[in-house]
Each structure stands twice: as C-alpha cells, then as structure tokens.
C-alpha cells in the first residue's frame, strides 16, 4: 500500500501564559487505516527521535466515549466526519499531500494548558452547580417503583449520551455551552426522579454557565452538527423554556 504524506500545521504553546504559534511538520508514509490520533503518535515518535518535544494532546479511551480527545481539524472540532470523535476519525478520509491545520478548542472558559490540551474543568463546575439528583446512597426506592414511559426514557438517554468533550463550545461562534448544559438539564428534567429539583437545577446550572464566561446561544445549530453524539438543539429549547417559565412565574 502506498503511504500517505501529509503536512501538519499544529498549534504549539508551552504553557497557559505562553503566546503560542503554529509549527509545520511533515509526516510521510502513513497507513490510511490509522486513526487520527495514531497519526499524531507517529508524529510524536518522529519528534522524539529528532529530540523535539512531542505535541501534547488529550486522549484516553480512543473508542469515542470518554470525551477526552479534542482537536479542531481544519476548522472543525473532531474533524470532518459527522458523529465522530477525533479518535474515531481515520486517515482514509484524507488525501495524499493534504495540509491539515490542528488547533486546540478555543474559548475563554477552556484555557489552553499546553499545545492542544485545554482545561475543561468549567464543565465539571457546571455539573457541580446542580447537574445531579440529590439522593444519598441507600435511600433509593425500588427501581420499578416509578414506571417511566419507554419514549421518555429514550429521550432522556439521547440527552444523557453527551460525552462532555466540549466540541459544542469549540464550534459555537459565541463559545456557548448551551448544548452541554441543556443536555444534562433535559436528561434530568425529563425523568420523574428529577422533578423535585427541576427548577433549582436549571437556575443554578445556567447561572454557573454564565459565570464561567461562556457566550450566549444564537441558535446557529453548529453544535448539533459537530456533536460527536449528535445531541439535538431541541434540548436547548427545552432548557430555555424551563428557565423562562420558572423565572417568569416567580
């Protein structure tokens, strides 16, 4: 099989206080069955032999579920394929001689730590602000005590499928976290278990989202296109309605 030769323009940044800039690297003879991250491994292996520091990037499970990998590839988070994380993107979708630009997620609330690695702890803080149902271990009723219609359970699942990668923020022109927040809000507000804290939850989570410095939602719909789990902006609508109705009522 003839190998794939690529030119990579990669954002390199030593630390959060460094200015950073693009570096260009050539990688040659790649196997097109490689995943994108394996291509990055090859590059790093090559850099080590040249005594250059490897490119830092976040990754862990490499099967599209942990949500750790995060690269903007040619202007699109997780690259060109629909419903696919970077780790599940394979090199057969690129052509010999391509120039690929790789950048970190860009948002004030996701500061760059090093190279392509960003700090997404703002997402954790949003969940901590209310993305849970307050139930202590041992105090739960029987699992079948509250029947939940199949379609409601399915809809809640669709929202719960979020992997917290942050592609929605990365692609949004306003760096809004609305899709992420609304997915969790909707999952819990769809289920009967989530009702007691429903109002408080959406208020707190929205307030936390704003205070983290995420932008507003202008409904471009880019997030649902780029979301590797294809989560619908319908959840944003649900969140907005919940939030508006709650506050107007009070």
């Amino acid at each position, binding site marked *: 099989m003839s190998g794939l030769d690529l030119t990579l323009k990669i954002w390199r940044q030593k630390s959060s206080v460094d200015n950073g800039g693009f570096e260009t690297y050539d990688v040659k003879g790649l196997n097109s069955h490689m995943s994108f991250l394996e291509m990055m491994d090859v590059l790093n292996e090559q850099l080590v032999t040249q005594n250059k520091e490897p490119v830092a990037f976040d990754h862990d499970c490499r099967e599209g579920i942990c949500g750790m990998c995060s690269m903007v590839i040619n202007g*699109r988070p997780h690259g060109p394929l629909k419903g696919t994380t970077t780790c599940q993107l394979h090199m057969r979708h690129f052509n010999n001689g391509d120039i690929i*630009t790789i950048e970190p997620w860009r948002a004030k609330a996701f500061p760059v730590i090093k190279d392509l690695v960003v700090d997404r702890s703002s997402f954790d803080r949003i969940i901590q602000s209310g993305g849970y149902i307050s139930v202590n271990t041992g105090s739960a009723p029987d699992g079948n005590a509250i029947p939940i219609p199949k379609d409601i359970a399915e809809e809640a699942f669709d929202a719960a499928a979020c992997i917290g990668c942050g592609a929605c923020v990365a692609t949004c022109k*306003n760096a*809004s976290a609305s899709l992420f927040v609304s997915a969790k809000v909707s999952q819990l507000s769809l289920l009967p278990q989530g009702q007691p804290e429903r109002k408080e939850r959406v208020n707190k989570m*929205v307030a936390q989202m704003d205070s983290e410095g995420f932008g507003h939602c202008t409904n471009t719909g880019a997030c649902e296109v780029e979301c590797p789990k294809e989560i619908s*902006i319908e959840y944003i*609508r649900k969140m*907005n309605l919940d939030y508006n109705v709650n506050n107007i009522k009070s």
Partner: protein
Amino acid sequence: MNNYLTSNIFRKVLASLSGLFLVTFLIGHLLGNLQLFIPGVEGQTQFNKYAFFMTTNPVVKLLSIITYSAIFLHIFITLYLVIQSKRARPVQYAVSNGKDNSSWSSRNMSVLGTVLLFFLIVHLKSFWYEMHFGEMPYQYLSDGTKIKDLHLITTSAFQNPFYTFFYVFCMVALSLHLKHGVESAIQTVGLKIPSYEKFFKYGAMLVAFSIPAVFASIPIYLYVSSL
C-alpha cells in the same frame, strides 16, 4: 429572579421579543406602503393623508415610541451580546469552517443587523426627517387644505436607480436577517416545539421572504414607472 435578569438567556429573550415585535411593526409599515401602488392623484392623496395621520395621531405616537424603544433595545442588547461573544473567545481560530455546520445568515446576524441599522438611518433621514423637520412640498387638496407631500418625496427618491438599488439590497439583508432571526427567536423563548417545528420553520421562511419581497417591489415599481 435577580439572576434571571442578568442571564444570557434573558438577554436573548429580550433580543428575541424586541425582534419579533419589530416584525409586527414591519407588517404594519408594509401595509401602509402598499398605498404607493395606487396610481394617480388618488394614490397621492390617500398616501399623504395616511402620512399625516401617522405623524399626528396620539395612539400612533405611542406605538412609535414603543417601536423606537424596541429598536434601541434590540440594538443595545445584541451589541452587548456580540461584544460578550468576542470576549468568550479571545483567541480566534486560524481556520474556521462554519459553512459546513451552519447557515451563513445565522453566523452573520450582526453584519446583517449593521447593514439594517445603516439602512434605517438613511431611510429615516430620507423620509421621517424630511416629514418632520424638512422643507416639504405640499399637496393642495380639492377642499383647499394643504398637506405635506410625502408621496412626491418618495416617488422622486426612487427615480434614482442607486437609491432604489440600495433599498432593494437592504431588503435582501432584511430577508436574511429575518430568515434566521424569526426562527431563532421562537427557539430562544422555548416555543419551537418539535411537533410544530415545520410550522415555525416554514412560517419563518414565509415571513423572511414575503415581507422584504413586497417591501422591495414598491421601489422597483416606482422606479420602473418613472422611466
């Protein structure tokens, strides 16, 4: 509730509601403008009487104050949001590829809005300012009274091809602005429920196409008739 008033969602709701209100204003304005299609003196008279009514009636005055407020609110709040959105991404991408995931109009509402603001200023200068403070020609009615001849001002303005083109161009911008704006506003307030999604989607498209199209047809008609 305090948090609500300072939340981004509330700000967006204000932008949405003010925007939707301005759509109703546009419809009213458009209905008035349709009188420009009436030919001859009859049309001139009716239009000028209508203009007189619109500038003097206290109810209309009240409405116009609300409209101006909506415009200011819309501009102010969206400007704020645009600045905030710039702050939310201090370092921009070197390569961005929005065309693959969103419509052009949705990504360029502020550009379209700016075009519309510029249009509004020019438009107000041409007609509203002249009507209120300018040296206006008069039409003498059959009962001997005289009335400011806005009809003449309007028809002569659209004898200028550049001015006509500018107007039509701005209506295209308005169409794009409405195309995203109306649907987005309904989503923001939370009413774009899936079972009515098609209704809202096509409704928004209808509004976005028809209002600017009819608006634009008037200057084109006037320009063509002047040839």
